[in-house]
Each structure stands twice: as C-alpha cells, then as structure tokens.
C-alpha cells in the first residue's frame, strides 16, 4: 500500500446554506483527515453557491477517500482536486503588523518593498503590511519580519483556481 503523504488543494462548490461549512469540517475531524488550510466564501450569489478551498495532506488512498466523502455530502455540487487535475494558481493574503523604531523600522520597509507588500496602516511606531502570494513567499516574509518587531499575523488561507480557459 502507498504510504507517501501528499499535499493536495481541493476546491469544493457547495450550496451556501446554514451548516454547510460545519458539515465539511465535521467530515474532516470525524474521519481524522488533516486540514492545513480552509477558506470559504460565496462565489455565486444568484445561485447561492459558495466555494471552499481545502489544503489537505494524506496518502493517495486517503486523498481519494476525502474526495469521495466530500462528494457524497448532499449540499456539495462539485469537487475538484486542483493538485491532481493539472496546473493551477494558488494565492494567500497576509496582514502583518510590525512595531519598531529606528533602523529596524527602515529595514522592515525595505523588505516590504522587496516583497511588494503594501503598507495598509501606519503610525509612528508601527506598520500593517499586506502581502499576497504563494504560502512559501508569505512564510519567508513573516520570518524576515520576526526580528524587526513582528507583533501580529493574520492569514486568509489558500485560495486556488485552475489555469486556462476552462471553468469549474
């Protein structure tokens, strides 16, 4: 049996009804699957459809199970394994609050520039930076800010979409 653990990004289109997120989360906790990141928002208000993006990890057998289990939930319309189905784009947004003065403050601004971060709030002693990108880039940015007065981090979790003309 295949034992290698793989990381997959799965997109799920669901009815935007009360309890649907609890159903998905309950499925993961009840069956012992991992959730590395989870995002959800309504994407089609006319048809009341929401899109959930889950980043999960497991053996190929477990990944197949996760997809099958998600598909059998009654309010689930579609399940796509973006990792398995070809090229896709993944993005995450982070807000990073840094409080420092003097040389550290200048250095933080310089690094923010390198990462194309935007300062969305500034005071005399702090900045809030907004950065988007793949998870690795955000991790690198956060790590660089740590010695420069990092006080708070808020991340959205991964959203993803397939490349090319084809829709969901």
């Amino acid at each position, binding site marked *: 049996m295949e034992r290698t653990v793989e990381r997959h990004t799965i997109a799920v289109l669901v009815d935007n009804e009360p309890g649907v997120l609890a159903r998905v989360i*309950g499925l993961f906790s009840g069956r012992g699957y991992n959730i590395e990141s989870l995002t959800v928002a309504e994407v089609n208000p006319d048809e009341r459809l929401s899109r959930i993006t889950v980043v999960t990890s497991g053996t190929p057998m477990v990944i197949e199970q996760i997809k*099958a289990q998600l598909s059998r939930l*009654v309010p689930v319309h579609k399940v796509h394994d973006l990792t398995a189905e070809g090229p896709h784009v993944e993005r995450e947004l982070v807000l990073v609050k840094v409080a420092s003065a003097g040389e550290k403050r200048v250095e933080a601004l310089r690094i923010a520039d390198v990462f194309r971060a935007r300062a969305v709030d500034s005071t005399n002693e702090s900045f809030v930076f907004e950065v988007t990108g793949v998870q690795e880039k955000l991790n690198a940015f956060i790590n660089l800010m740590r010695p420069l007065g990092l006080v708070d981090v808020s991340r959205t979790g991964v959203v993803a979409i397939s490349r090319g003309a084809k829709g969901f």
Partner: protein
Amino acid sequence: MADQALSGSEVVLKALVDQGVEVIFGYPGGAVLPIYDALFKQNSLRHILVRQEGGAVHAAEGYARSTGKVGVVLVTSGPGATNAVTGLTDALMDSIPVVCLTGQVPTHLIGNDAFQEADTTGITRPCTKHNYLVKDPADLARVMHEAFYVARTGRPGPVVIDLPKDILVGPAPYVAPERVKHRSYRPQIKGDTKRIEQAVEMMAKAKRPIFYCGGGVINSGPAASKLLTQLVRLTGFPCTLTLMGLGAFPAADPQFLGMLGMHGTLEANLAMHGCDLLINIGARFDDRVTGRITAFSPNSKKIHVDIDPSSINKNVPVDVAIVGDAGHVLEDMIKIWKARQARTDQKAIKAWWADIEGWRKRDCLRYRTSTEVIKPQYALQRLYAHIKDRDHYITTEVGQHQMWAAQFLKFEEPNRWMTSGGLGTMGYGLPAAMGVQVAHPKALVIDVAGEASILMNIQEMSTIAQYRLPVKVFILNNEYMGMVRQWQELLHGGRYSESYMDSLPDFVKLADAFGAVGLRATKPDEVDHVIKEMIDTDRAVIADIVVDKTENCFPMIPSGAAHNEILLGPEDEAKKPVSEDGMVLV
C-alpha cells in the same frame, strides 16, 4: 398554486401523505404539539405511540427494512431528539431510509438555551445522511419532499428535519412532490458498461471465484436479490453473504456458503482467503468481514460494486470498481454474460468446489449437544424447524444470540432479517420487531434476544400491548452479557468484569405485567413445546429459554486475525491462543 390556508403542521402531514407514508412512530412533547393536534384531526396517517424515542427510530428501521419503504419518526425537541440519536446512527451505519421529524423551540428562541432546546442539527449532523432546520415556512414543503428523496435515493440513510414550533403554527404554502427537484443530489445508479464488461471477462477467466454480497443488494429491492440468484446460478460460483446481506441469496441453495466474517462459516472464510477472484456486490469490506486487513484475501483480483463511491478503496484496494445500484449492475452483468455466451473454466471451478466441499465437511457449526442444558444453537435450530414454513420475520438484539441466529436461522428471501450490523445496538430488536409487525400484521415476527439486550428497550412491551402486536420475544437467557463474557474468556484471562447479569427480572412475570404471555424452558425436552406454544399464541409472548451459561460462539476469527486463522471450537481455542495484538481492536 400554493395553498395558503394550511398551517405548517398541516403541510407536514400533507407532505407525508403525498410521500405515501401510512405509519409514523413517535412520542409527543411541547414543541411538536401542533403536529399532534393536526394528527388528531385526520385519518390518513396512523401514529404508533412508543415509550421512548429511541424505540421509535428502531421501529421505523424495522418497518423500513421489512417493506423497502421510508420509515418515519416524529419526536419532540431537546430530549426527544437526543434520545433518537442512537437510532439515527444505527440507520446511518446500516443504510436504512428513515425520515425523523424533530420539534424545535420557536425560531426567535433558538440559541437562548430555551426549555427543551438542543442543537439538533448540530448533534445529528454526523449521524444522519443529511439534516435540515426549517426557518422559513416557504421552505417547509420543499424540505419535506427533499428529505424523502435524499433518504431513499443512492445509499439510503436517515434524514432529520428540525421544525421550530412557530413554523408549525403559522401558515405555510404547500408544494406537491412532483414540483420539487433536488438541486444537486443525483447519485449514480447505472454502472459503467466498460467496467462491467471487464468484470464479466474476469469472471469468465476465474479459477477460484467467489461472490461476496451484502446489504446493498437488499437495499436495491427484491428484484436485485432475484438477479443475484440468477447470476450466481448462471456462473456456478460459490456465494457468501454478510450479516446485512442474509436473504439476498437463498440459504438453501447449494451454492450458498453461509455468512462470512468474524462468526462466519469455515467454508466462506477459507474460500474468501483462497479465492483468485472476489466479486463484491453491495458490501463494504467491514472490519468484521475482513479480519486482519493485510492478510485479507491475499491472492485475489477484486471487483467491487457499490452505490457509494466513498466505499470503494476505503478499506481494501480493488481492481475493478463499479459505482452503481446493485440491481442495475447485476442486470447488466447478466446481459453481458449471456450476450458473450461466457463460459467458465469448468475444470478449475470443479476443483475449487472440491476444496470448498472439503471445508464444508468439517461442519463448522457443529456443537456439543446436551440432554441436560439447553444449547442456544439447539434452541435456534428447533425454532427454525417450527417457523420455516410460515410467513416469518426475524429481528435480533446484539451479541452471541445475534450471531447464532445468523448462523442457524436460514433466510430464503430478502427483507426477512432485521439486525443491527454496523452500530451493533443492543436494544434494537424489540422495537424493530414492533415496526415489522405494524407493517405485516398477519406475519409471525420474532425478536431473537439476549436477556441483557432485551432490557435496554423493554419499555416497548407496553407499546406492543397497546396496539395488540403479537410480537414474539425469544430470549436465549444465559445470565451473562454473552459476547462480552466470551471476549473476556478469550482475551482477558477469564476475568468476567461486570458481565454477569445479577438480579434479572422473572421474564415470565414481566410478560404478564405487560399483558403478554410468558413461557419458560429450562430443559432441552421443553424447547419444542415452548416454541409451539409461542407460535400458536395470538398475542405477544416472551419465551425465556434458559440456556447453557458458558457456551461460546464459534467459528470465530479473533480480532486482528486472518480468515485462515479461524477458531472452530473450544479445542481449537486451546491450541491457538489468541494474540494479544487483537486486544486493542474491537
């Protein structure tokens, strides 16, 4: 057009009637009083008043499993709903279609810790196929119809509809079932033809094949069992059934090897172990069937037909997976088999049957007979001899008696055998028998019970009395939680911790107290007489069969063991001590 004249409660009842419901099992309470008031004013729905909500769900399960219809439950909010949870989980595990209506506090009080409030949709989310909380009267009729569609379509299961009291009291529009179509839920019913062709090809080439079939065949309807029988006979292959599948293939057929799994027959388990092609139709490779998964049927190609895609490759990786309804796939298999004029490898199949007959000769269900004490197996053999020519239905509780019933009672047709397989719910059998008897008033309905299990829902004897249901309770009374005691003997050095049933009631007097007839047999030569009297009595009967206290259920594949490590009896048990690895398993 929507009919504004109806109240929410009336919409609920109208939807039930339009869904073909005839019987509801329920228990009133504050939050559902409007529905009970509406029930009082109509005559199309019959209500069976149970004595505890758990009994209502099991009764609905028995009703559903013996008729193929959706079972319906009506309970109040809070404790009414939480008492229903075990039955809902049971129905989920065994894929039984049930719609359970629960009362709820009015919408403006939800979340306020109101009297008899519970987060019913939250609590039942993991133990239902789907659930709804109706917060807008405009959704009520649609939700009612959708719930029935979801409960019976695809892999069947329980659906809860939580109904706040204000929704029941206020006006609500009605919509007919034909006008409701679920937005997204469309399970795959028809199997992929290419894969079915591939499966047929593998079947034609097989040298040591076996059919391993389960409850999915029964859930597909009686036609599926007929098709299975046809295919098995067409191929000449052996067939074994799971606990949930008993009746899907006639037990008297020489191609039937009996039940497989932990307490299955030697021939079924060794054939599973030694086969080169395993054809699974509507079973789910449950751990009670597979034993140690790494040693399960090690040299076989595997075909798996299941309506639930998540059952495929869950426990055991398979070579050909066919998602679809058992009946449809079986029909296609037969068509393709006949169209190709498929021929099996006669010589190999003959040799395979010779192996199987060799195992069968070991007569694995043999037990030491006695003229002093009643052996439970003997009691069941005698019971079967008396009922086999009658229109009968069997339910069971959970434990040794359940396994003996599966071994010693023979099922020639589907929908005749109601047992709690997946969840293993003690207390299932009596209310389930009640539900079966309501559906089949003229039939002989017997709950094969243990003295421990029967006490878990004994209050339902009162329901049985109220509706004059002639249910027969056949207790194999060994004064132990027999299966617990057996495991303690095998795995825990014979330390019988809390498995002895001290201070049991006098079941004969108990029957009397509930207006039923109580009978007792203590010696083997009394068994026939008691069974005959039980059957001839046209009222409810509790037959207390006092059996050997220390009899163990064999064959047995201990937890964590493989099919070929099966224990045949006490002698075998002494020779092959059970590995301690199995202790951590259930």
